C-alpha cells in the first residue's frame, strides 16, 4: 500500500467516525496530503531552532522527531479528529494548556 492509498484509508476512517457520509474526493485527499506535508516540514524546521540551545541536542531531536513522525504517519487525520467541535475535547485541551502554561511560567522562570 503506497502513502496515497494509506492516507485515503485514514480519511475514510475519520469520515466514518464523524458520521460524514460523503465520498472521499480527489480534492479532499490532496488537501489532506498537503496538510500532512506542511505539518511535517514545519515541525522539522521548527526543531532546527534547537540549535540555539545545543547543536547535538538539535541533531538528536531531528532524528527522534523524524522517527516519531514516520511511525505516526499520517498525522493530519488524527489531528483533525482531535480538533473537532466537541465540548469535551475542547475543555480537555483548555485545561491541559492551562496546566502547561502555569507550570512553564511558574517553575520555568523560578529555576533558571
Amino acid at each position: 500500500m503506497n502513502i496515497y492509498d494509506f492516507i485515503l484509508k485514514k480519511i475514510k476512517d475519520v469520515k466514518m467516525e464523524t458520521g460524514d457520509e460523503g465520498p472521499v474526493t480527489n480534492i479532499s485527499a490532496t488537501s489532506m496530503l498537503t496538510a500532512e506535508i506542511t505539518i511535517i516540514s514545519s515541525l522539522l524546521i521548527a526543531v532546527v531552532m534547537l540549535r540555539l540551545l545545543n547543536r547535538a541536542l538539535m541533531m538528536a531531536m531531528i532524528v527522534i522527531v523524524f522517527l516519531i513522525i514516520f511511525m505516526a504517519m499520517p498525522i493530519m487525520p488524527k489531528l483533525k479528529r482531535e480538533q473537532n467541535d466537541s465540548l469535551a475535547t475542547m475543555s480537555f485541551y483548555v485545561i491541559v494548556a492551562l496546566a502547561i502554561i502555569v507550570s512553564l511560567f511558574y517553575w520555568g522562570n523560578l529555576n533558571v
Partner: protein
Amino acid sequence: MSTENLLIPLMIIIPITCALFLNLLHEKSRVVKIISVIVALLLPTIPLLANYGIQYFGGYAPLAQNPTIATGLPSFITGSALNIFHPAITYVFGSAQKLMITILGFVALFAIFISLYEVKKPSGVYIYLILMGVASVMAMLLSDDIFNLYVFFEIAALTQVGIVLVSKVDHNYETALKYLIVGSIASPMLLLGIALLLGVTGNVNITDIVYSIKTGLVDPHSPVLLMAGSLIIFGWLYAAGLPPFHTIKSAMYSKALPTGAAVLQAFSVFTFVAIGVIILRIFSYLHFAEIFILGISLIAMVLGITMAITQTDFKRLIAFLAVGELGYIGVGFGLGTVFGITAGLFQAVNEAVITALLFIGFGTIMYKTKETELKKLGGMLVETPKSAFLVLLAGLAMAGVPPFNAFQSKLMLVQSSLNSGLPEVAIIMVLLSIVTFMTFMRAFHTIYLRPKPAGLVIENENIPRVTIVAMVCLLIICLVFGLYPQLATNYLQGLAMGIA
C-alpha cells in the same frame, strides 16, 4: 501630548449610548436605520479627527503633572513613587491607537451598512451588539488600566456570543453556548491573574505596574507575579483565539452572518493586540514570555492553516485561515524587536481589513445560494463576476501577494526574523503563505470556476450595491497600505519603540 481631549471618551460613549438606545427601538426600522447610519459614520470619523492625548476618568493626573494638588502635600508623598502614579483610570490615545481604532471603525461601518441594506427589516439588537463590541474593543485599545480592560474584555466576549446567537445559521446556539462555557474557564483565570498582579504591585495602572517592576519596588521574580503572568497569558489565548481556543473561535466565525464574522475577526485581532501589548510591556523582562509568544504563534499558524486546507465549508475555511494569520502577528510580538513588533502591528491592521473583505466577499455566495458547503457550490463566476474579482484580489492579499498590504507586513516579518537570527521562522512563514494561497485558490476554484452542480439553486436577487462598494473600499485600503506601507508603519512604530 495634550491632556484635555473630549473626543477620546466620545469614541466609547457614543457607540455605547446609541447601542442602548437602538436596543429599545428595535421594532422601529426607519429610526434604527437612521441612527445606525449616523453612528456607523462616526465610528471611523471621531478617531480620525481626535488629537493625540491622555484622558483621566474618575480621578486626576499624577501629582508630578498636577502642581495645584501636589502643593501642600507632605514630602513623603510627593517625594515617593506616589508622585508619578496614576490615581485615575487612564486612556492613552497615541498614533498606533488612532490607526487601529480607525480601521476597526471602518470594518464596523461597512458591516453595519451591509447588514442594514441586505435585510428588509434591520435588527436593532444586531446593531446594538456590533456597537457594544466595537466600543469595548476600542476601550481595550485605549485603556492603560488593566482592570478597566478586563471589564471591556468581558463585554466584548458577551457581545461576540450575542452576535452569533442572533445570526440565523444552523447550530449557532450550540456554538455560542460552547464559547460561553469555554470562556467561563478562561475569563476567571484572566481576572485571577489581574488580581494577583494587583496584590503584588498594589496597582492596576499598567504604566505604574511596569515602573514598579523596573525600579525594583516589586520583586520581578516573585512567584505570585509569575503566576499572574501565566494566567494573563492564558486569558489572552482565549481572547485572541490562539490554540487551544482556535477551534471554538473558528466555529464562532463560521456560525455568524458574514457581516458578523467580519466584525468578530476584527474584535479578535485588536483584542490580541491590546492584551498582547500589555503582556509585552509588563512581562518582557522574562525572556521566556517572548519565547512562549513565538512558540504559540507558530503553533497557531501551522494548526490554523493546515486545518483550513481540510475544511469543506468555506466559512469555516476562512475562519481557520483567520486564526492562522493571527500567528503572524504573534511572531512579530515574539521576536520582541522594534522592527518585529512594528511588523506584527502592521500585520494586525492588514489582517483585520483583508479577513473582513473575505468574509463579506464570500458572504455574497451565501446571499445568492444560502449554501456554504464547497461540494454543493460551483459556477458562481457567471452569477457574481464583480464580487468574484474582488474576492480573488482579497485572497491574493491574504496570501501575501504584491502589491497588497499583507505582502509588505509579511516581508517585514520575514526580514525581522532573519535579523533576529531565526531563519527557520522565516521559512515556516513563507511555507505557510504558500499553503494559504493554495487553500484559497482551492476554495475559489470550487466556488467560482468549476461547473455549476445540478442541484444548486441560485436566487435571482442582485447583490446590494453597498456590499460591492464596501468591498472596493476595503480593497483600496489594502492597496494603499501595500503601495505606501509607511502610511501605517509610521503610526505604529512609536508604540513598538515603547514596548520593545
